[in-house]
Each structure stands twice: as C-alpha cells, then as structure tokens.
C-alpha cells in the first residue's frame, strides 16, 4: 500500500464495513446458516420435492423466454435510440426506464388488468384463443416488463461509443449491412449484450411483486420459486423456506460468476500481449 495522503480512511471504511456486515452479510449468512443447519438429507428432500422442482422449471423457462424477448426488443430499442433521429426519440429514451421506476406491485396490477380476459389486450387475445393472465405467458410478460431496461441500458452506451470508422472500413472491403452487423458490430456489442442478458435473466429469476398478480399461482403450473419460498413462510415452515431461498441465492451467485466469466472471455482480445 502506498503512503496515504488523504484523510478519512478509518471513518469511511469503518462505516462501510460495519454497514455491509450488518445489512448485507449478516442476513445472507443467517439464511445460509439456517439452510445448512437442516442436514443434507432434509435439505435435499425439500429442494428436490416435486413442487419445488416444478417451480424451478416454471421460473427458469419463463425467465428464459422473457430474456429472449428482451434481447430482441432491447437490441432494437437501443439501436433505434442510438442510430436514428426521429420526433419523440428522447421521450422514448426516457420511457425505457419506467419499468425500473414503477413499483413492481403497481406494474403487477396494471399488467393483470391489461391482460385479463376483459382487459384492453386480454380481450383481443382471448378472441384469438390466447389466454395470458393466470398462465405462464402472464409470468413471461411480467418478467419481460420488469427487466426490459437492462439490455437497452447496457448495449446503448457501447453502441454510442462504437468507432464509426470500423463500419466504414468494412464497407470499403465490400461487406453488406448484414455481414457488417454480424461480423463487426455484434462481436463488439457482445460483452454488453451478455451483461444485459444475465442481469435481465437474474432479475426475472428473482422477480416477485409483478408476477404474483398475473400468474394465477397454481402449484406445479404457474407457481414461481420466489412465491413458493413465501408460501412456506406463511405456513410457518421456516426450514423449507430457508432451503428454497438458499437455492435462489445460489442461483444469483451462479449468475454473477457466469456473467464475469462470459464477459472476460468476450473481451479477451482487448488484453495487451
């Protein structure tokens, strides 16, 4: 460590460490402790129960679908905001953050009302024979809504900073628009896309507020893992709640690790040799 010049390290670092310990580490530690105190057999029985596994499946599949939608829509949105000038562009840019600013419970009742069979969209969709509210499609929509800004906001700054000369260079070499997008732009956007994807997916895995209104919450069908943890709690089955919550925590950490690995790999070419 170099000689310290500025004052305030003990105070600021002290506050930070105590706060992080009490607010972040202590509760998560307590959760892990609680789950660990179950013993392997009991733990396994709880986390591999049919109902739990069904909830993982619902959560993962819906989160994957929602993330896929956001990948396409988010990329298109980022592209349109960065590359084109049109009336209302700044308004659209500002609106992108609405899903982050709007409380999830509010989003939940709004989406449910929109997609209920007598709602603005639900009516039209049920005429086509598509039921959204109280089905997995509803879960997907709630997840997609709440995690929409991630891809846009990670890709947008990178897209803005891309060196225009690379596109020009590719054109002088005879590449078509599609080839330039695929071979020149996409690889450079990839780290940002991966970051956005994993943030979006992680958020969808953990989302609760917006989903419980629209999902129907039928065990085995439309019950997400977060809700199962909540239900076990309401049933005073604390060990089960702890075990299921620990699985979600594990998934969150796994996502963090995977994101870091993918990003590092996608950026390996920037490492000086």
């Amino acid at each position, binding site marked *: 460590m170099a000689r310290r010049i500025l004052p305030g390290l003990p105070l600021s670092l002290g506050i930070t460490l105590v706060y992080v310990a009490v607010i972040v580490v202590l509760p998560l530690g307590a959760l892990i402790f609680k789950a660990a105190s179950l013993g392997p057999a009991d733990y396994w029985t709880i986390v591999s129960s049919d109902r739990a596994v069904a909830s993982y499946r619902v959560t993962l599949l819906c989160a994957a679908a929602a993330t896929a939608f956001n990948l396409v829509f988010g990329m298109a949105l980022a592209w349109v905001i960065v590359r084109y000038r049109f009336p209302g562009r700044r308004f659209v840019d500002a609106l992108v953050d609405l899903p982050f600013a709007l409380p999830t419970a509010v989003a939940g009742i709004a989406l449910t009302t929109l997609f209920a069979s007598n709602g603005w969209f639900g009516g039209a969709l049920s005429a086509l024979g598509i039921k959204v509210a109280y089905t997995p499609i509803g879960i997907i929509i709630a997840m997609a809504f709440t995690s929409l800004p991630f891809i846009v906001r990670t890709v947008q700054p990178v897209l803005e900073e891309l060196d225009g*000369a690379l596109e*020009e260079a590719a054109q*002088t*070499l*005879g590449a078509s628009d599609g080839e330039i997008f695929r071979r020149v732009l996409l690889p450079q956007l990839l780290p940002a896309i991966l970051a956005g994807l994993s943030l979006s997916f992680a958020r969808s895995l953990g989302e609760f507020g917006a989903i419980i209104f629209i999902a129907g919450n039928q065990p085995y069908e439309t019950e997400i893992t977060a809700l199962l943890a909540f239900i076990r709690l309401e049933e005073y089955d604390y060990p089960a709640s702890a075990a299921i919550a620990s699985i979600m925590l594990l998934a969150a950490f796994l996502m963090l690790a995977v994101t870091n690995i993918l990003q590092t790999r996608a950026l390996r070419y920037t490492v000086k*040799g």
Partner: protein
Amino acid sequence: MKIRLDKIVKTFDTFRAVHGVSLDIGSGELVALLGPSGSGKTTILRMVAGLEYPDEGAIFFGEENATDIEVRHRGVGFVFQHYALFPHMTIGENIAFGMKVSKTRRSAAEIADRVADLLRLVQLDGLKDRFPAQISGGQRQRVALARALAVDPKVLLLDEPFGALDANVRRDLRRWLRKIHEELGITTLFVTHDQAEALDLADRVVILDKGRIVQTGTPEEVCRAPENAFVMNFLGDANRLKATVTAGRASVNEVLFDATGVPDGAAELFFRPADVIWREDGAGIPAVLLRVIDRPDSKRILAVTADGQHVEFDTAPEFPFRPQSRGTLEILRPKVFAAAF
C-alpha cells in the same frame, strides 16, 4: 486506373467543405492531397472512396462514372487515419475479412495463402494470430494496408497514413510505402497535412486551401515555383516583406525585384531563410541583427530591416554574430505576389 474529379462540391450543413474541385490522377500515379486542417482534403478522399457523396460534380474511375456507386461496390482500398482494425479479429482475420465477405468465393486455403503473401509483403510474418491491441502502431499501420490491398483495389486511398506515428517510424514507413507502390503500381491518393511527407512520397502534390486547389505539381514544381503566397508559406518557413509594384518591378526599401505579371500596387516579397546573403556593406536591403538561435547544422539569425520589418535567415554555424551590427541582406530566389487583403 485513372481517376477524374469533375467540379465536385460538398457542403456540410452550412459549411462548404469543397468548392468545385477538379483533378485528374493518372493510372499508377501516387498523389498527395496536402493542406491544413479544414482545407477539405479528407472530404475529397472520402468522396473518392464513396464514404461521402458530392452535392455537385462527378467522379470518374477510368471512363466509368462512379459518383453514385456505393462504397462497398467501388473497389477502393482505404487506410483509415487510426487504422480502424477490427479489434476482435486477429491480424490474419482482419486481412482475410474482405475476401471472406466478397462475392467471389474463395476457398479457405486460397484465403490463407493470400493472407500469408500479404503478411510477407508488409513484413509482418508471424503476427497472424495476434490481436490489434497486441501490436505496435507502425505494425497496425501495415496491417491496415495489407487489409486494404487484400481485395485487389483499383485505387488505394490513405487518410493521414502516418499521422499517429513517431517521427522515425514515420520516415521508415514512408520509404517503405513508396517501395510497395513501385512494386504494385496501384493508383494511390493520400491525404496529409505534413509537407515533408507529401514531398518525400508523392509523384505529384495537390495543395488545398479552404476547399479549393491552390496548386498542383511535382514536388519540384511546387517547391521551386510556388504560384501564390499560401503555397510559399505552407511548404516551409518564409520571410514576407511589404513591397510596391510598378510596371513589373517590386520595390522594397528602394531595392528592386523582378515582379513580372504582378499587377501594380501593394504586393509582398517572399523568400526562404536559406536564400539570404548577409554583408557588412554592399547592395541589398539595409538591416540590423538582433538575435541568434543556434541549431545543430546552422545558425538562425533574427534581424530587422531599416523600415522595421522582421526577417529571419540561416547562416553557417561559423557566422560571427554580433548584436546590433549593421549590414545588408541580399535576397536570392525572391518571389513577389500581390498583397492579400
């Protein structure tokens, strides 16, 4: 491939970058577009490439009107100022890119052979699998050139090709580019703001100012016979003295100089610092020495004329400088131009 620019005009928003420029470039010629920033030289180069479209005028490649041909079909090789190498591709992949996206199908082996040939040409064998971030600026420059050459361009266009490099790397690369040009014989147009670079490298120099061509000629022609004050100043240090022209003779401090073709009235006399002979007495413009700047190969003397105009001239290192000594300046190779207002 011959290139012809016919009265091209380009305006950005309200700023007119290029004012009706016409230019013929012979097949196999190496031409420099030389000018200060804002002279429109890069815009002209980009229009030849098809990266910008002229508002008026036409560009011909040979007999074909190329004005509206898209850049990707124009068949030019373009080397960008900061190289624009694809950062996520290796050197080999960068060079192969144009061949991979080309309509003419080539086998992987063909492409690999060609990449190897080009790497040899630009003297970078063995760097095929490095990424651009892992090589030096001069090496990147050569990769950019190899990549541009890989698509067999009809014309090679270079935008400030050595601008981002150290002085000695730059000089080596210049000589090397000249050699490559002689080997391949591709019509080449490059942009620079560095007159030494243009004079060193080009067959012909096109000097631009404020979107207009101010002189075109071989390095010898533009150096020996600058057609106006801008060219005189831009190509190197120049002294400027106020003069008055009457009937083809310019008078400075009652010393007369040839000014054939310059209209009567206010004018300016230009000469290089090396084109001065200092005498303690004799004919010439009377002046007083002020100060000396020592240089490795000469002495630069600062003087002031009897009517208060400043002059700089170069002498041998042995020059016996004494401040305030009086004498006269004999001026060799003087140029007289009508005064600019």
